[in-house]
């Protein structure tokens, strides 16, 4: 078995794999978390590290060119814009009176379910 890739490509792939794992964790969180506010954490925020690792991987793969600097700029803009999106969504939900789900609600739901089975 031969390996026809350089050490740099291997390192880049490693970083991108790490990024993909965090994106996957983010997607899993999106499916599993109970309410709107917690899902915002999954959709908006868990991506930050995934995005960071993916971009580092891409920058290593590209090497020292102008494209790398442009990628760094895109990465910075994502970092500045991402929290604003999350904040606007959560603020809109909060102002329109969306209730925050807590562990007490979980207990209540479980009690109600227990009643149903009787």
């Amino acid at each position: 078995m031969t390996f026809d890739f350089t050490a740099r490509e291997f390192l880049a792939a490693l970083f991108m794999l790490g990024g993909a794992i965090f994106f996957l964790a983010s997607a899993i969180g999106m499916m599993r978390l109970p309410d709107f506010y917690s899902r915002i954490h999954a959709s908006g925020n868990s991506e930050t590290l995934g995005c960071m690792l993916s971009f580092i991987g891409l920058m290593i793969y590209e090497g020292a060119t102008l494209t790398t600097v442009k990628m760094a700029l895109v990465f910075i803009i994502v970092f500045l814009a991402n929290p604003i999106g999350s904040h606007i969504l959560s603020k809109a939900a909060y102002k329109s009176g969306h209730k925050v789900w807590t562990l007490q609600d979980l207990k209540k739901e479980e009690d109600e379910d227990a009643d149903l089975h009787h």
Partner: protein
Amino acid sequence: MVAPIAVADNLFRRKVVTVEKQSVLHDKSIVGSPVVHLVGMAVVLFAFWMILSGRTEVKFIVYGILTSVVTSWITYPLLLVPNKDGSKKFFVFGISLPKLLKYSLWLLWQLVLANIDVAKATTSQELDIDPKVVRFYFRSENPMAAVVLADSITLTPGTVTINVTDDGLFEIHALTKGAAAGVLDGSMQEQVAKLFGEKLDFAVAEGEG
């Protein structure tokens, strides 16, 4: 830093965008030197131009210098935010670069730690979460400090700034126990206060979950 809407619409209520009759260069209420701000902004814009264009012919460089100078001159009055009583004006990007770099590195490290924490909590067999709203007060003379703090908290995984009021009450939705404790221990508030060279004015507010 780009302003989150919570703070931005508060600023607009205080009428930030007022047309000055006197030149901004002679405005004594601006903190720092307007000339330094203008030159710094033009240099950053020109660097951005060069990165995007990547061409070094004289024609393009001259275009770049002209557009960056004109852009910074036109937008400078719009990038001044007044403090609460309106006696001082702060330049939005008037943060010292070494301090900003130090803060960014610290924030990146916090991001990595918090993200691993949240990824663990959401992918573990039993969802290890405790979502609730935590509240604290953070007051600063420079309105940008509130913006940077709200932005940093939202950027950190596990915490989202839901609301910021005029009197400096921050309402944060925290996903896990660790995230809630991380917001309330005041380390990020301390770093932000240090970044803007202000005294830390921070208090945890009591509130229901």
